[in-house]
Every structure is written in structure tokens, then in C-alpha cells.
């Protein structure tokens, strides 16, 4: 009998090990936070409404937060040592920062939804243009159909230009490489940060002033292309790099040339990620206002032809109408903002749903098809 076996017999009934939970939420910490929140709210109310000559919701929140931190510290100090309290306080500060970011996003969406629902709940908003609507016309006349059509057409054209160019540039950086890859990457990064108004100014200077093209939807889509292309390139390069090298080597070993390998192996493998890249670029492009402002021109009427005459899009529609003093005009602007937000959200969620898979992972449908084929064979 070896030593090890003997010791194993000597301690036969050690209690089953339980994993020690580090950190985690205790009742004390939760109650401390709740107490501090309630106390600071009450004190804030007293200060704001009774003692000090203060007003405004923003200041109320700022003071509440500062009081809350002070009370968290005080209440913590009653129970724990200084180091624990500091630890908890940091946790509270960074946590509230996360909550703030979430609250800001929710606030943007909810506020636009509330202000926009007034005009958007009338069906004429989506079936009419503003051609026959005067400044003081009631909300039951006029709409944003022209802007929706313009936005979709300009976005479609811009996608048509930006996607092949952007993906080709990404393939160049990751598949061809060479000395040029690094400078191209640097310039693409600089292009992502290009101020949108400069993109508009550029197209205004080249296409409209120098080439003499009229302000139209096509010019706007060129400006959007300049904004969308680097976004598509950067996102596409990341996913193309994730394609396993073994797949490429397999293709080469079978005698495939490089262009065959890229078109038949690399790009199809990276397809979900590429779609995500494209859709993210579209989500960014559809909301761009300043490039469109300088290049497409404004019209209140319907114009479905992007190649001639002024064409309005949703951001431009909003920019134009919210600056009217008439409340109904502002309501139309908000309804257009709600439409725009909805488009951005749909695009964004689509991108996330598709982008959840890594390159090479199969979708549920593909997996089912594969199973069917295997069962059949």
C-alpha cells in the first residue's frame, strides 16, 4: 500500500468543498445604497424646494448624485473600515456611470418616440409629401414620404458604391498585403475620423462646383460613400482576418488561384461578419446630416429621381422643419426623427443578430441542410 493511498484512507470523510464566493451582493451593501439614495433624495428635495434658490431638473439630479455619494460614504463608514468603504464607493461611481450611459440612450430613444408619436400617428405622415402643406397647416396634412424615399435611394446608392470599394480595400489589406497595407490602414483610420461636413464640402467643391452637376440625391450619395467606405473597410478587415489560414491553404493545395480562393473561400466564410460590416456602415450613413445638407439641396415636394433635381432625405427634413416656430412643423420634424431612429435601430439590431456568429460557424438553416444531406447520403 503506497503512501498516497494510506493518506487517502486516513482522511475519508472530508466535507465536500464549497466554492467560496468572492465579492457578490450582500444585503448590507444593497441596503446601504438604498438608504443613501433615499436619504439623499429627501435632503436634495429639502435643499431645492425649501432652502436654496435653485431650479431645474438637471441641477436637481447633479446635487442628488453628489449627496448620494456623500451619504454612501457616511453610511459605509459607520459599518466598515476605510478601505472597504473606498472600494464600495468606487464600485458605486463606476456602476452609476454605466447606468448613466444606459439611461442616456434610453432617454434619447424614448424622448424622440414621445415627441414624434404625435405626427407619426397620423397615417398621412407616411403617405404625403410637404408639397401642399403651408407653415400653419394642421398635422393631418403633409408628411415625410418624400424624405423616406430620398433617404432610401441615397442610402442604396451609397451602399452600392461604398461596399465593393470598402470590401476590396479590406481584402487588399489582409490578403495581398505588402508594404502598402500599413499606410492604407493608417489612411483608412484617418478617414473614419473625417469630419462629416468636410465630406460634404468636398463633394460640393468637386461634383457640384467644378463638374457643374446640379445638387441632387446622387451627389449626396457620393458624400455618404466617403463617410461609409472607411467604416465598412475597418469592420470587414477585422472579420476577414478571422478566417482560418488553413482554409486558404486547403484551397491553394487544391490548385486554386488567389482570386478563386478569395471569392470562393475567404469571402463566403466571412459572410456574416461582412454583412454586419455593411449594415453597420448603412446605420451610420443613413443618419448623416451635414454631407447631405451641402449636396442634395432641399425640396418640399416628391422627387424619386436621385440623378436630377433636389432631393430631400430624413436628416435634412428634420434639420429644416424643427427650426420652424410652428409647433406642428416641429412635431413633423420629431416624427421624421422617430422614423430615422427606427431605421437606425432596425439596421443596428440586424447587424448584431447576424454578427453574433464567428466566421465559419453555420447558421441554423445551414446546419439543418447539412444534417438533411448527411441523412440522405
Amino acid at each position, binding site marked *: 500500500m503506497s503512501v498516497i493511498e494510506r493518506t487517502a484512507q486516513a482522511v475519508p470523510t472530508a466535507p465536500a468543498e464549497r466554492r467560496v464566493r468572492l465579492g457578490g451582493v450582500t444585503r448590507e451593501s444593497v441596503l446601504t445604497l438604498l438608504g443613501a439614495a433615499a436619504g439623499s433624495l429627501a435632503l436634495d428635495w429639502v435643499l431645492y424646494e425649501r432652502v436654496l434658490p435653485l431650479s431645474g431638473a438637471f441641477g436637481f439630479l447633479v446635487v442628488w448624485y453628489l449627496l448620494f455619494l456623500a451619504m454612501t460614504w457616511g453610511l459605509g463608514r459607520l459599518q466598515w473600515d476605510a478601505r472597504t468603504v473606498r472600494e464600495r464607493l468606487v464600485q458605486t461611481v463606476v456602476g452609476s456611470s454605466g447606468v448613466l450611459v444606459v439611461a442616456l440612450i434610453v432617454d434619447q430613444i424614448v424622448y424622440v418616440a414621445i415627441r414624434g408619436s404625435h405626427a407619426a400617428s397620423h397615417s398621412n405622415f407616411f403617405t404625403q409629401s410637404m408639397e401642399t402643406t403651408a407653415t400653419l397647416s394642421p398635422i393631418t396634412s403633409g408628411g415625410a414620404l418624400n424624405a423616406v424615399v430620398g433617404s432610401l435611394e441615397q442610402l442604396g446608392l451609397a451602399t452600392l458604391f461604398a461596399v465593393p470599394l470598402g470590401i476590396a480595400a479590406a481584402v*487588399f489589406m489582409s490578403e495581398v498585403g505588402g508594404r502598402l497595407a500599413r499606410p492604407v490602414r493608417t489612411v483608412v*483610420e484617418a478617414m473614419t475620423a473625417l469630419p462629416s461636413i*468636410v465630406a460634404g464640402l468636398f463633394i460640393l467643391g468637386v461634383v457640384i462646383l467644378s463638374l457643374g452637376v446640379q445638387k441632387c440625391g446622387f451627389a449626396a450619395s457620393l458624400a455618404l460613400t466617403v463617410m461609409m467606405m472607411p467604416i465598412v473597410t475597418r469592420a470587414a478587415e477585422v472579420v476577414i482576418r478571422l478566417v482560418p489560414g488553413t482554409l486558404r491553404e486547403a484551397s491553394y493545395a487544391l490548385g486554386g488561384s*488567389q482570386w478563386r480562393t478569395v471569392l470562393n473561400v475567404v469571402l463566403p466564410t466571412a459572410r456574416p461578419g461582412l454583412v454586419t460590416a455593411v449594415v453597420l456602415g448603412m446605420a451610420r450613413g443613413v443618419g448623416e446630416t451635414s454631407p447631405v445638407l451641402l449636396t442634395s439641396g432641399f425640396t418640399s415636394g416628391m422627387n424619386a429621381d436621385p440623378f436630377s433635381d433636389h432631393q430631400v432625405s430624413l436628416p435634412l427634413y428634420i434639420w429644416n422643419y*424643427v427650426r420652424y416656430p410652428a409647433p406642428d412643423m416641429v412635431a413633423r420634424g420629431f416624427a421624421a426623427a422617430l422614423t430615422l431612429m427606427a431605421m437606425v435601430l432596425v439596421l443596428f439590431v440586424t447587424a448584431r443578430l447576424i454578427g453574433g456568429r464567428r466566421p465559419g460557424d453555420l447558421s441554423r438553416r445551414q446546419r439543418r441542410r447539412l444534417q438533411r444531406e448527411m441523412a440522405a447520403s
Partner: protein
Amino acid sequence: MADFVTADDGQGTGLDASSDAGFDAGEDRPRRITAPVSAGDRIFRGLLRAAGLSVFAIMGLIAFFLLYRGLQALRSSGWSFFTEQNWLTQAHVFGIAAVLPDGIIIALVALAIAVPVALTAAVFISEYAPVRIRSALVSLVDLMAAIPSIVYGLWGLFFLQPRIVGFVRWLTMHLGGVLPFLKVRTGDIDTSYTSSPFIAGTVVSLMIIPIIASLSREVFSQAPQGEREGAYALGSTRWGMVRKVVLPFGRGGVIGAVMLGFGRAMGETIAVALIISPKFLVTGHILENGANSISALIALRFGESDALSLSALMAAGLVLFLLTLLVNMVASVVIGRSRSGAATAD
């Protein structure tokens, strides 16, 4: 990168017999490996290279055309373009000495608000948030970056501005005496406090929070696991670990992220143009009505039809373009030189 590797002659293939035979060592040079490229591949690579080079073409054309179109104005004004505060193109008196500093002031206000929020949020997402909600938070920050700037502008103009006036009044009354830049000299009526660089900067801060937060989160999450565990093993608390391991590791990345945010804030147009009431004077009183920036100036004035006005806007756009380019280049150098940047690079 993924080239064919083939021998250009048959001699080197198989076992290397030459070394056994004791040939002259000078003969034993590394063999040059060349890849035969088919015509199809050559065309394919040419197309891809053209696409890659198109970004140089676009950026070059932007610089060239802004300069070409702005030359008329630059000739007309000479060096006073950089010293003149007014913008009266009809009278041939115009310059960016007011709009440029005013735009920088708005960007600095935005940074002052965005940096603390974005960094603490990044620390929260990468270090404190429960693992289950982490990816959701990352998506939300990305969504925040995708919200159109005109929506932020609407929010700032109609939602934030009426609610922030009371706070601004309190700031100027109690701190205006101590800190001169918080003074408001136009009397205690609500319109003195609206359309100010402060409110515009607050709205712009919302747009740069996601940029700074997502970049910083990325570098924070790459802090080496070994060093984290080392800190814990030495008895560090979580905040101690974050302060001594994660934050120093991410310093370069964070500085770069803040500079990128600054560049973005400089170029932000629509939200600023919606909120401010334009003025052409550098006052430095950030709570007072009246502000300006190059991009807002372009957005508000591009409708002027005479050639000189447009040319002046092009020249201003060129300055903005070069400035943001410079900021971004410096930022990427800072990120690339830092330890975290080296870790994130390919």
C-alpha cells in the same frame, strides 16, 4: 501573404544532399523563392490594389480641392485669414480667429464632461459589470455611437436646454465671481443662458462618450491576466488592482482615445449648429449665449451664393480637415507607442 511557395528549379527539392557532400559553403545560400502569378491573379491583385490606393486618392483629392477652391479667399485675405475674428465676406473682412478657438472651447467642454463619464463607464464594463450583461453593455455603447447626430441635436435643443438653464444660472451666480469664465454678463434672463458653448459642449459630449468608452474598454480588457492575478495575490482590492494594473496598462490607449474624441468633437456639426446662436468673437465665457465653430459656420453659411463666400468656407474647411488629420495622426502614434497599443496591434 498567402502566396504559392514553389521551387524555381528542381535542385533544392527533396533532401538537402549538398550539405552532406561538403560543397563549398559559399554555394549554400538561401534559395530565392518566387511565386508564379497567373494572369487572373495579376488582374485581381491589381484591382484590389487600386481599391486600397483609392483611399489615398480620396484623401488627396479632399485636400487638393479644398485648397484649390479656397485659394481665392486665401489670396483675398492673406494672412489676416488667421487673425481676423469677423466673417464678413461681402466686405472682404473674414478670418477664422474667432470660429477656430470657439470651436476648440466647445470641444474642450465636451471633453471635460465626456472623459470622466466614458472612462468610469469603460472601467465598469471591463472590470465591474457582471459577465452576463457585459456584451449587452458593449452593444449599447456601440448603439450610442450609431444614433444620428441630428437626434442628439434635437434632444439637446428641446429636452436638455430648458432643464439645464436653472443649473447654469446657479453656476454663474455662485461660481462666476471666483472663476471668470463662468461669468454671464448679459443680465439674468433665461435667454442669456441658452445657446451657449456649455450646452453645445454637453450635447457633443454625448457623441464622444461612446468613442472614448469603447476604445478605452478595449485596452482595459487587454490588461494581462497574470498581472491582475499578481496584484490580487499581493492582497490588493479590486480598485487597487484596477488602479495599479489596468489603468497604467491602458494609459497610452486612453490618451489616444481622448484625442480621437477631441478630433470628433471638433468636427461635430449638426448638433452644434442647431443649438448655438452664432457669434464672431472669442470671449471665453462658456455659459453665455453665443458660440461658434468652423463646422457650424459651414453648415449655416453654405447657402451664400457668391464665389468668395463659398471659397472662404472651403478654406475654413481645409483648416478643419488638416487639424483633425493632425489630431488623429498624433493619437494613432500615441496609441501605437503605448504598451496597450502594442498589444492591440496586429
